[in-house]
């Protein structure tokens, strides 16, 4: 050991170890082996299989953990199911008390949790102690409040039931908190599977639940690997799956749960941009990069892994970053003066090493600090790539390690373009001293979280979640609660009558017959023949003939021919999506302007109400035609009214900061209209979507498509900009899959059959588009709650949280 005079000269840092012994004793007390936590007690794995949880810093085993079989999962689901009604009926206040107790438990045992987390995961003790565990406690406190307020603030919402939750290894206990706290606050019970690399803090948390007197079965922890996860995902008695992990696995889960009616939220990968403008405080930017990519060894889904620097300052930034990297310290995670701990496992280390090599092979300049990284255990030095082009592999794929790439841009517009040049959309960080620039750029970034002059800051009161292939759903804040409730009216819903077929009813719908089979009207000598009306597709603000050159005959209620509509095909869908994509100014425009257009639509619809009444009566034979038209006009008004009132929130994140939770339009939404109420169904779905700034591609009701084609004449007279609403008639069963699989469609609403819904959900996995399907269940479009209101607005938007710290 160095003597004091030697250290006095060198002024080096020495070891500053946090004791591992309390955590190791806790493992010891459990005999070094852990079963599942099911129904409030420890349960041995049914198949008697165990696996080892390793300390990545030493490569040595810490404990043996049960490998969950599908029987174990089933047992846990049964326990959760049995507990759920009582838990929900206990009421918000009782649940709030329990969540409060859990928060207290976490605080009381915070050091044990921190040490255990660092041992099992390899993250520096500073991070588990100062970041992870305090955020865990905060999450339970915050959601204790939501439990308390549920009955008033979410009065029309009901719990989902049993929730299956699968979490990753990078923030084991924090991800557990993000999953469990909102779920149980809202009256659900959970079956949670921690990642197989990092089960231990979840098991300690289970013990805390027990000690805090949480009713048995409310929280169940089943450990295991991907097979256990699969058993949860495919379990038939689970109402919702919440998953955080890789996009690849998220996609598998999306496909696996398609059509099952399981609600789904996915928080997936990212390649988050870190934009540095020339007027930024560069020294603070450097620390921002440290927080962005050298936090948790870069194993962070929202890690700022792509630095985009304005050309004029790029060189200076590179030099300062390199200087800063020299002072980072990699090593023993339990050392209190270590910045970067251990990589989770050898397999991850290999992946990082391979990607870095590929980056070098592809011609980028790799730089690592001069000091040597520990060679025992799983460690990787901080790494900076410059001379990187957007097409380089390392600029596109998620490395999930302490490796950052740097590119340059010339203008703010180019910065946004580069930032958005990714399949992901989890987070972004913007560094500038100009409030104008920051608030201009933040809304343009396709990311669920935008941090201005900060990065990787989190709080229970602010939603976190992705755009694009980074998943959907939010965790935290008011917006996160939605993932764990459903509208109360949907409880006990039955299969809808007219929604029975795949995409639309076959009964009186458009039919492909020979045009020779009949003219509609009987000819009387005194009459002139009616002028033939050709209903076309409506794409990009123009009436367009179908690419196929075919038409479909539409019959009225009596079976007579009512007219013909174009038979759209995949190319028409393609054209419609392109038109919708280029109508982006609609989204950027003001809500006031959109409302004006919608009111104008209502005005013109009212002027033609007789015509629509007749059309509806003839097509559906339904006596409610007059009522449907009146209600449709009202719905347009309702959507117009909401256009400038679907406000966001300013979250109370606990530091000097404004966190703006802004509902942003999804983008281009495909809408497959319901069969029932052809006009009202069309209006009730299309209008709220466009009111909030989306552009839509509509596949009208197969039963009465002429209502929709009549409607484009209303649109044409109402100043609706080209491409905002596109209508493609044809066989819904043929068109819907094209929309569902289209990677430039951001969302898809489907009000057809259960079978169609399953297909939509399955195909949506390609680009992880947001889907809203009714599984063929009934919805009364005349009812205000079912046919209008918040549910529509929520699906028409996704919440972006913009964090703006302030202070001069």
């Amino acid at each position, binding site marked *: 050991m160095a003597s004091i005079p030697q250290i*006095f000269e060198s002024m080096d840092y020495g070891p500053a170890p946090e004791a591992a012994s309390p955590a190791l004793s806790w493992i010891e007390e459990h005999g070094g082996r852990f079963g599942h936590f099911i129904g409030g007690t420890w349960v041995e794995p049914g198949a008697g299989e165990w696996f080892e949880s390793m300390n990545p810093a030493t490569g040595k085993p810490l404990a043996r953990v049960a490998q969950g079989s599908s029987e174990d999962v089933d047992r846990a689901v049964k326990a959760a199911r049995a507990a759920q009604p009582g838990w929900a009926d206990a009421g918000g206040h009782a649940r709030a008390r329990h969540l409060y107790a859990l928060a207290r438990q976490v605080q009381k045992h915070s050091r044990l949790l921190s040490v255990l987390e660092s041992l099992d995961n390899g993250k520096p003790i500073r991070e588990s102690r100062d970041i992870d565990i305090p955020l865990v406690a905060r999450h339970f406190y915050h959601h204790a409040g939501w439990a308390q307020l549920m009955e008033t603030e979410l009065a029309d919402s009901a719990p989902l039931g049993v929730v299956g939750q699968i979490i990753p290894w990078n923030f084991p206990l924090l991800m557990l908190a993000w999953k469990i706290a909102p779920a149980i606050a809202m009256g659900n019970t959970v079956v949670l599977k921690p990642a197989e690399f990092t089960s231990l803090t979840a098991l300690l948390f289970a013990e805390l639940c027990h000690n805090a007197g949480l009713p048995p079965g409310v929280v169940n922890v089943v450990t295991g690997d991907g097979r256990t996860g699969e058993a949860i995902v495919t379990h038939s008695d689970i109402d919702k799956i919440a998953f955080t992990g890789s996009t690849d696995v998220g996609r598998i889960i999306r496909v696996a749960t398609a059509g099952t009616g399981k609600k789904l939220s996915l928080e997936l990968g990212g390649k988050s941009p870190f934009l540095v403008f020339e007027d930024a405080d560069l020294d603070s930017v450097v620390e921002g990069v440290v927080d962005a990519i050298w936090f948790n060894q870069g194993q962070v889904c929202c890690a700022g892994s792509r630095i985009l620097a304005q050309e004029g300052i790029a060189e200076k930034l590179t030099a300062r970053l390199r200087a800063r990297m020299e002072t980072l310290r990699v090593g023993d995670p339990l050392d209190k003066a270590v910045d970067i701990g251990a990589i989770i496992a050898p397999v991850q280390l290999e992946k990082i090493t391979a990607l870095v090599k590929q980056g070098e092979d592809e011609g980028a300049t790799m730089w690592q600090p001069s000091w040597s990284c520990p060679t025992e255990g799983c460690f990787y030095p901080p790494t900076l790539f410059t001379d990187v082009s957007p097409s380089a592999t390392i600029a596109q794929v998620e490395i999930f390690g302490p490796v950052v790439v740097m590119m340059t841009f010339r203008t703010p517009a180019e910065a946004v373009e580069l930032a958005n040049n990714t399949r992901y959309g989890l987070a972004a960080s913007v560094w500038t001293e100009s409030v104008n620039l920051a608030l201009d750029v933040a809304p343009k970034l396709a990311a669920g979280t935008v941090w201005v002059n900060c990065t990787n800051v989190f709080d229970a009161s602010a939603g976190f979640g992705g755009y694009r292939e980074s998943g959907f759903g939010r965790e935290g804040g008011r917006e996160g609660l939605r993932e764990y409730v459903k509208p109360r009216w949907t409880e006990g819903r039955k299969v809808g009558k007219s929604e029975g077929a795949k995409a639309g009813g076959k009964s009186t719908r458009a039919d492909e017959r020979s045009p020779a089979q009949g003219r509609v009207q009987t000819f009387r000598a005194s009459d002139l023949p009616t002028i033939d009306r050709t209903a076309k597709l409506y794409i990009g603000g123009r009436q367009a003939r179908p690419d196929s050159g075919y038409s479909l005959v539409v019959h009225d209620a009596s079976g007579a021919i009512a007219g013909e509509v174009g038979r759209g095909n995949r190319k028409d869908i393609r054209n419609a999506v392109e038109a919708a994509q280029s109508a982006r100014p609609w989204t950027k425009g003001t809500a006031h302007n959109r409302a004006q257009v919608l009111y104008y639509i209502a005005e013109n619809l009212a002027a033609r109400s007789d015509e629509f009444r007749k059309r509806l009566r003839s097509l559906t034979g339904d006596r409610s035609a007059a009522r449907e038209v009146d209600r449709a006009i009202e719905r347009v008004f309702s959507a117009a009214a909401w256009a400038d009132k679907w406000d966001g929130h300013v979250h109370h994140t606990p530091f000097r*900061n404004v966190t703006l939770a802004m509902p942003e339009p999804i983008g281009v939404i495909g809408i497959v209209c319901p069969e029932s109420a052809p006009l009202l169904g069309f209006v009730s779905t299309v209008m709220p979507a466009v009111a909030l700034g989306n552009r839509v591609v509509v596949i009208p009701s197969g039963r009465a498509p002429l209502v929709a084609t009549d409607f484009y004449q209303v649109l044409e007279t109402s100043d609706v900009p080209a491409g905002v609403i596109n209508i493609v008639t044809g066989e819904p069963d043929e068109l819907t899959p094209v929309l569902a699989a289209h990677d430039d469609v951001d969302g898809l609403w489907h009000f057809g059959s259960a079978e169609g819904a399953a297909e939509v959900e399955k195909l949506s996995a390609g680009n992880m588009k947001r889907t809203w399907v009714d599984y063929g269940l009934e919805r009364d479009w005349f009812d205000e709650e079912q046919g209008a209101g918040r549910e529509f607005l929520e699906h028409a938007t996704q919440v972006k949280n913009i964090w703006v710290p302030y202070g001069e």
Partner: protein
Amino acid sequence: MAQISRQAANAGAGGDLDPRFIPRNPGIPLELDWVRDVRINRSAVERRAATLGTRRTVKKEWQAAWLLRAITLMDLTTLSGDDTPGRVRRLCAKARQPVQPDLLEQLGASSLRIRTAAVCVYHAMVPTAVEALAGSGIPVAAVSTGFPAGLSPFAQRLAEIGASVEAGAEEIDIVITRSHVLTGDWQALYDEVRAFREACGDAHIKTILATGELGTLRNVARASLVCMMAGADFIKTSTGKEGVNAVLPVGLVMVRAIRDYLERTGHLVGFKPAGGIRTAKDSLVWLSLMKEELGPRWLRPELFRFGASALLTDIERQLEYFATGRYSANYRHPMG
């Protein structure tokens, strides 16, 4: 500007402060574009400052060694209206022997020459201090230029520097005119500090920014740059008399300004946080800040000082705790 040649000639001959290694900062012409370009993001600075003490820590031998180093970086200070020659002599005796020899022996550190970096007093006490420290090699620092407000007549302030240098002070801690900063009159600030530096001659000049009165961190950074351009050997946070004295975010901003100045001019400038640093733990965080942001050269008295009066006692107690394993008491350590 005629001063520049003389300033340059002084470079490398700066008193007793190890001139072999640290040439004096000769200053540069005022660069207003640079001053105006300064960007400081307060929230980000505060975040970094908040984690300085949580990212780094030293324990056991390392802590003891770092604390001994902290003592050698200390400008042991008394700046009170009731200062007397007796009080100053007592302080100087403490500066010569800040840690009891038996304690040093217990620490295995008897080989180290532990004494404070300087003793800092008002002008009136300079002769007493010079006499009391004779032969020790410990320089006397004098606060000057109408300390602490700095609003006495300019000629008088210049004369005060001259008098203190004449009386044997080797370091002069001047206060700047805050209104120059608050009104953005950078030229006036530059000229003032230039003149002060000229008056100091071979004595080193520490420019006290009184950051607690500058309003914003951006002002702190700008004032730091202007003082360095004008030839400051050290930039110092506070007089100890402002409402807010040495705090980490301010220190971080000043230290980064020093780094920026070094990068662009090649000149080394020292840093002195003063006021409010009372605990051993505080001093360790400041040392981490210097090591992390500027590197080990700034862990030596040529480039780093603590302005402190109460800090030493706490450090002595911590050293004794390390040596004996028992928590110590103030009265066990000789007063300064």
